[in-house]
């Protein structure tokens, strides 16, 4: 035992510290509100007819319906995975409604003016740069409200350089050959329970295709929200960067306050061809539930990128502050020689939140490199698990991996767990994994205090430093929101 940990802090300080901590921990979810607009829902339940209904609604070609039905068949044979260190009540998949659209198809707006003002107001509250703000922020937003895309901006500007950025259903209609070629290529329907479920009933999502040699002129962004009670949201995102292309994709989400658990099982597939680069950033702030975790979102996401071509690169950055239960492992399959995979993550669990998250780096090509930086922060009764896998195949000559995962604990009731899996089959590979778990450094605090910083400023400084390595990776547009999110949930909480 070190002397530092044994030293009791002066008696006067903890009182103020605890008050600040309590206050911050008890802070209400700021983005919690419900938009009341007309919904067109399917009654709860899941069978072939549900799938046929969704497919027909979206006027999908026959092959896609077949694909969905096959996935449903697969899903029925599978059992829900329970290996993650999260606990939640049994989910009744037959009590969920698999289709909700905020507007009737025939009333689809032709321009922003026709959009339901309440919807716009919702976006307004969340600070989404959709209307006038779109040019200002320089962000193209494909906002998904429940299951149907409402509006896609900047389409023309992107079309000039040949970039396809549209909702998934539009892509099915307009670029079926691309969708057919890439759908399920990275995450097959048989991949896991939630992936099979998503494949059967996915409602909508985003589709991005960057043609060869094109550097996407702006950051692409989707804000999607869950709104209707009892409606699971099954997003499907497909991003393809052709040879030498570059794209940075931003995904952010907040959800209104609800009292019933909402299921979210999304799939994100990325494909990077030769010399292509995809940067995928996420800020996730779904409703985490109340102090006891009641009402929060269940977030079971399958995200995977394939570095198909030589010298391709895929980079995942995520800031996870929401959801009652998070089950998410953005991964990279490094197939091309000299391809690069990166994973940067800050995850925060407060109150009764549970997060089991991490990444998987599968090295197949020669001289492939991967970096994993994961920062976990647990407060209240939050449970946090980093679960990461690094696998070096026999053919991965000279592969290199560096993994660092640090956990910060705030309060004696939370938990932080680190479960790395390292499997190496090639002697020329070099792997390093390091991890630390501790509460905020007493000596660091002391040093800052001694230099005249207040307790709160000192804590904030240290915590920002703790997450900085990851926050630095975020695009400008997101960095502000991410810091705000962390600030709301964290800054005053440490001490």
């Amino acid at each position, binding site marked *: 035992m070190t002397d530092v940990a044994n030293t009791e802090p002066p008696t006067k300080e903890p009182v103020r510290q605890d008050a600040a901590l309590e206050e911050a921990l008890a802070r209400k979810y700021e983005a919690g509100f419900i938009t009341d607009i007309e919904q067109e829902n399917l009654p709860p339940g899941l069978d072939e007819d549900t799938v046929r209904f969704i497919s027909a609604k979206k006027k999908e070609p026959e092959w896609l319906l077949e694909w969905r039905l096959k996935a449903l068949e697969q899903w029925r044979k599978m059992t829900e995975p329970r290996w993650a260190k999260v606990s939640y009540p049994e989910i009744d998949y037959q009590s969920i409604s698999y289709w909700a659209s905020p507007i009737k198809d025939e009333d689809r707006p032709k321009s922003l003016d026709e959009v339901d003002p309440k919807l716009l107001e919702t976006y307004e509250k969340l600070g989404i740069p959709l209307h006038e703000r779109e040019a200002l922020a320089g962000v193209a937003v494909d906002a998904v409200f429940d299951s149907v895309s409402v509006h896609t901006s900047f389409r023309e500007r992107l079309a000039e350089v040949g970039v396809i950025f549209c909702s998934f259903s539009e892509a099915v209609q307009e670029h079926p050959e691309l969708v057919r070629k890439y759908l399920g290529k990275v995450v097959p329907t048989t991949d896991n329970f939630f992936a099979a479920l998503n494949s059967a009933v996915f409602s909508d999502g985003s589709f991005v295709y960057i043609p060869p040699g094109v550097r996407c002129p702006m950051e692409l962004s989707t804000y999607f929200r869950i709104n209707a009670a009892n409606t699971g949201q099954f997003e499907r995102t497909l991003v393809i960067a052709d040879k030498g292309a570059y794209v940075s994709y931003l995904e952010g989400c907040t959800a209104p306050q609800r009292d019933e658990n909402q299921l979210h099982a999304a799939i994100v597939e990325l494909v990077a061809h030769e010399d292509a680069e995809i940067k995928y950033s996420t800020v996730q702030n779904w409703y985490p539930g109340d102090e006891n975790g009641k009402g929060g979102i269940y977030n079971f996401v399958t995200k995977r990128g394939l570095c198909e071509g030589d010298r391709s690169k895929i980079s995942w950055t995520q800031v996870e502050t929401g959801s009652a239960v998070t089950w998410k492992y953005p991964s990279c399959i490094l197939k091309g020689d000299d391809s690069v995979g990166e994973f940067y993550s800050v995850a925060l669990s407060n109150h009764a939140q549970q997060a089991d998250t991490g990444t998987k780096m599968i090295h197949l090509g020669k001289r492939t490199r991967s970096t994993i930086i994961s920062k976990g922060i647990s407060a209240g009764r939050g449970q946090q698990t980093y679960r990461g896998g690094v696998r070096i195949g*026999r053919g991965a000559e000279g592969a290199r991996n560096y993994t660092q995962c640090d956990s910060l604990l705030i309060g004696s009731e939370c938990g932080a767990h680190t479960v790395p899996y390292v499997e*190496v089959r090639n*002697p020329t590979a070099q792997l390093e994994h390091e991890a630390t778990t501790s509460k905020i450094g007493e000596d660091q605090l002391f040093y800052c205090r001694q230099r005249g910083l207040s307790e709160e400023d000192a804590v904030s400084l240290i915590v920002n430093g703790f997450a900085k390595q990851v926050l630095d990776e975020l695009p400008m547009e997101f960095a502000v929101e991410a810091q705000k999110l962390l600030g709301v949930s964290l800054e005053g909480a440490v001490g």
Partner: protein
Amino acid sequence: MSLLETLPASPKSEPPAMKALREQAHERLASEGLPTKKTEAWRFTSVAALTGETLAAGPSTLSVEAPKGVSTVERESLEALPAGPFAALNAALTDETVVLRAEGVVSEPLSLRYTGADHASYPRMRLEVAKGAELTLVERFEGEGALTDAVLELVLEDGARLRHVRIQRDAGRLIGSVSVTQGRDSHYAAHVITLGGALQRLDLKVGLDAQGASCDLRGFYAVDGSEHCDHHVRVDHRAPHGTSHQTFRGIADGKGVAVFDSQAIVHRTGGHAEAHQENRNLLLSSSAGVHTKPHLEIDHDEVVASHGATVGALDEDSLFYLRSRGIPADLARGILIHAFAHEPLTGMPDAFAKEVEQGLLERLPASEALADLGEELA
């Protein structure tokens, strides 16, 4: 007939506690059977070869040399059945249970020697180190065994100190389980050395059950040919002010596979804990494999915990340096591997360190030249 269908009933003369334990083991084996590759803890270690064989217990393969201060204890009850399928198999099939107790400061080591045989054996040992007592325990597993399924329970009472040296050399198929229970301010130091063997599996569990208990676990393993070794280490911090260190290093050559899985768990009751894990591996051939999984589970914020794991080849620059000084390639490799293996051996009593050194040298490239070099330097 499969192994599990041939489980013998317990002998008539057995004490009721042992009988109960056996029944419990029978039940567990009947419901769970032997592990498969789908069992998380046995993902990389296959015991499929065992299921077809009749592994009835043969004559004893264990010899005990107890120094003055260590005595045999007649005991009515034994501790509860430890977790794991092979601990259950041991309890179901064992016909030799030795219970020893050490008092005071014992200067001579307690020696246990297990020799391999062409039949299976299920030795079961329990060692109690009395309050304030000090002891060195040395276990040697030698010779090709059909199957040695050994269970060892160690109980350290308050303030006890135990140094445990376990040398597993070419021991055929060896599946061992060591569980340690530690009293207040007790200290447990382990040196686990695994040099070869067709299948070596060790489950080492340490419970820091009372305040101020500490443990220092060091290990070294080497596999070559088609050898397979698997170390599963688990430390539970259940009481405050516990300290644990795990330092394991290994080399995998030929088609050998080394598995290292370690857990450090700080329970809600185990505040002010310090837990460190380190695992370094050298992968020396393209057909060998290393699987490592050092994981931490922390349920308390008053904690300092860290873990590190590396897998890599010998450093090219160091090899080049040695070559440029006129040292042959083989010897240069030998020197570097030898240096790498040294860390887990530190703190080991000299007599055993020499023995391990000898075994290690035999497995290194240019072993003779290396041995000569060692003598010259000495």
